[in-house]
C-alpha cells in the first residue's frame, strides 16, 4: 500500500447504451476502481467486455449514467462536455490500438498536436525530445505513411505524452504491431510513463502483455455486468 494520492478513482460507475430495437444495454457497472499516482496497471479482458468504453469514460469522451470518475481529484461526471475536453487535454494521454496518427501531418507535427489543445505552450523542442526518446529523431519530418507500423505507434506514444498528462490510457497498443515491435512499444510506454511520472492504465486481451505490469486487474472482476453474465 502506498501513501500516494489516486490519479484515477472510480465509484459506482454505470454506463448504458440505447439499443437499436429499443431498450438499453448496460455495459459497465464498476463499483470501485482506482490507480495511484505513478502506478502502472494492466486491465485484462476479452473483446466486447467494455474495456474501450471504460477508457472513453475515463478520458471524458463519453459521459457516465451514474457514479463518479475522478481524475487527479477532478470529478468528471460533474463537468460539462467542454470541461471534460479541457480536463482531457490537460491531464490525459491516449494511445490507440490503431495509432491514429493524422496522415496530413509529419511525425513532429503529430507529436505537437498532443499539446495543441491544452493550456500549455506548443513546445517544438519537447516534441523533438520525445521523438528522440522513442528513437525517431531522424524521422521528424516523415509522414505517417512513410513510417512502419511500429514507428507509427512510437510516434503515437510520443504524442500521448506531449501534453504532460498525469494519466496515460493505452487501448491495446500492441495489438496491431508485429511481435518484435510490440515488445519495443510496450517497453517504451512503460519506461516513458515511469520517467515522466505518469500513471498508466493499459487495457489488453493479451496475457503476455499484462504480465509486464506490476498490477494486473481483470475487467471481469471490476465490472459487475460481466460477473452477472
Amino acid at each position, binding site marked *: 500500500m502506498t501513501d500516494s494520492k489516486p490519479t484515477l478513482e472510480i465509484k459506482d460507475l454505470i454506463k448504458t447504451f440505447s439499443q437499436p430495437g429499443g431498450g438499453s444495454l448496460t455495459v459497465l457497472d464498476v463499483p470501485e476502481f482506482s490507480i495511484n499516482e505513478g502506478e502502472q496497471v494492466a486491465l485484462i479482458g476479452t473483446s466486447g467486455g467494455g474495456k*474501450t468504453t471504460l477508457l472513453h469514460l475515463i478520458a471524458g469522451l463519453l459521459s457516465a449514467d451514474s457514479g463518479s470518475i475522478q481524475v487527479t481529484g477532478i470529478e468528471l461526471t460533474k463537468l460539462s*462536455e467542454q470541461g471534460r*475536453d479541457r480536463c482531457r487535454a490537460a491531464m490525459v494521454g491516449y494511445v*490507440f490500438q490503431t495509432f491514429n496518427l493524422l496522415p*496530413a501531418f509529419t511525425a513532429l507535427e503529430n507529436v505537437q498536436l498532443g499539446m*495543441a*489543445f491544452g493550456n500549455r505552450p506548443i513546445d517544438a523542442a519537447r516534441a523533438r525530445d520525445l521523438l528522440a526518446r522513442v528513437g525517431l529523431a531522424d524521422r521528424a519530418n516523415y509522414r505517417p505513411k512513410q513510417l512502419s507500423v511500429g514507428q507509427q505507434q512510437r510516434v503515437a506514444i510520443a504524442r500521448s505524452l506531449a501534453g504532460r498528462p498525469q494519466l496515460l490510457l493505452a487501448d491495446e497498443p500492441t495489438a496491431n504491431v508485429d511481435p518484435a515491435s510490440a515488445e519495443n512499444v510496450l517497453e517504451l510506454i512503460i519506461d516513458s510513463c515511469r520517467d515522466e511520472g505518469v500513471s498508466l492504465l493499459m487495457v489488453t486481451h493479451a496475457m503476455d502483455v499484462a504480465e509486464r505490469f506490476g498490477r494486473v486487474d481483470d475487467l471481469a472482476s471490476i465490472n459487475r455486468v460481466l460477473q452477472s453474465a
Partner: protein
Amino acid sequence: MLSRLLWLLRIAWRNFCYRALSSFLTTLSLALGVALVVLVLAVFGIVTEAFSRNAQVGYNLVIGAPKGSAMQLTLNSVYYLSQPNENLPFTEYMEFFPAKHRAEMVRKYGGDPALGERDGVYASYIQFDEASPINFPFFALDGESVAELQAAGIMTLGDAAAHYKEHDTFADLEGVDENQSALLVDSLGLRGFAIPLALGDYLGEYRVVGTTPDFFEKLRHGPLLEERLGFRDGRPFKSHSEENGYFEAVLGIRVAKTLNLKVGDVFNSTHGDPEGDGHGHGFTVVGILEPTGTPNDRAAFVNLEGFYLQENHAKPLKEGAIVVPPTEAPVDAEGHEPLSIPAREVTAILVRNGKLMLAPGMENEINESMRAQAAAPVAQIAILMNSILGPILSALLVITLITCVVAAVGVLVAIYNSMNDRRRDIAVMRALGARRETVTGVILLESLLIAVIGAAFGWLLAHGAIYLFSGEIEDRTGVQPGIFATSAYELYVFPLVLILALLAGFLPAWSAYRTDVGSNLAA
C-alpha cells in the same frame, strides 16, 4: 492564444494540402468564379468610365438640328457614334456671338453684311461686354476677390479676360486662392465658348471632325476639367497656315497609332461613311494629341475651313442669297478661299455658358425656337446610364452573385464530400482534447482558406487578363485600364466570397461538430 489560432490555421492548411487535387480543383473553380465576377465588373466599370469620363468635356450644352433626338445628338457629337443629325445653317452658330464677332465672320468668310449688325440672340448667355467694370456683386463672386482684382489693376471684364488668357488663373494675384480664382473665372463668364463641329467624313473607321482651333484652345478634360488637350507631337492646326493653307489636321492618339500616321503625313478622308468615296484634297497632319481617355482619342480633327472646301461639302446657295465676298480671307497657293456663310453648315455646336446659371434659360430658348435643339450631354449620359447601363449593371450584379453562390456551393460539396474521410481525424483531435468548437473552427478555416486563395488567385487572373488586353480595351473604348484598377463593386467581391465560403463551410463544420468520437475511433 495567437499561437493556438495559428495552429488551427496550420491544421486547416495541412488538410488543404493533403487533399491536394480536390483542394486545387475546388480552389480553381472558385478562382474562375471570382475571375469571371471581377471581369464582368471590370467590363462594366470600363464601359461606365468610358461614358462618364467623356461627359467631362468642358461644355455644358450641345446644339444640333431639331430633327433627331437629344440622345442621338449627344451620341454623335460627344462620342462620335451613331449617324450625325441633319446640319444647322452656319448662321445658327453665329447666334452665339456678339455683333463685333459676327461682323468679323462676315469679313472673313463672306456673306450678308446685315449679319454683323446685330448681336446673336444667344450671345448674352455666353459673351460679355469687355468694357464692363468689375464693380458689381456677381453671383458667387465675393467683394473681397473683386477688391483684389481691382488692386491688381484689373478693372474691366476685358482686363480680366486678358489676365486669364495669359496666366490661366487668378490665383497668382495676392490674396486670391485657387478656389476664389475658380469662382472668379466662372462668375466672370470667362470660360464661355461656342465651338462648331462638322461631321460626316471618315478616316478609315474613325470620324473626321471639322472644327476650329478653339477646340484645342478652350476645351478642357479630366475629372476637374483642369487639363488642356495636350500634344504628343506637333501643334494645333491653324485656320490658315502658310505651309498647308486651310488643310491641316490633328489626330487623336488612337487614330495615329492604328493608322500609323505621324506629323507631316497627308491623308484623304472619305465622304459619308468609312467605305465612301475619298475626297480629293488631303489634310496634312500637324499634331498628334496626348491620350485623353475620351472619344477625342478616336477622332481626326480637321480645320473647319478645309472641311468646307472638300467637294460636296458646300451647301447650295438659295436663290437671292446675299453674298458679299470676304475681305479678310487669305487665299492659299492653290487659290482656295473660305466658303461663304450661306454655303456653310455645322452639325453641332459645343457650348459652354460662362455663367452656368444661365444655361437652362438658354437651353429653353433654343428648344423653343424650333430652329435647333439643345441637349445637356451630362443629362443624356445619365439617362443612358439609368435606362440601359443601369439594368445591365443590375443583371450583371445578379449574375455575379449567382456565380459566387455556385462557387461557394462547390466549396461546400468538396468539403462535405471529404468529411467521410476525415471523421477519424476529427475523432482523434477530439480524443487529444480538441473541443467540438475547435474542430468546427478548423473546417470553417479550411473553407476560408479556399475562399482567400481562390479569391486572390481569381482576382489576379482577372486583372492579369485585363492587363493583357489593356491595349485592345484602350483601342476599343479609349479607357486605359491599369492592372490594379478596380471597380468600386470589386471591393465587395472579396468579403462576399468570404461570407459565402463561411456559409458553405457551415454544413460540413456542423457535421464535424456532431462527429461521434467513440464510433469513429473504433472504426
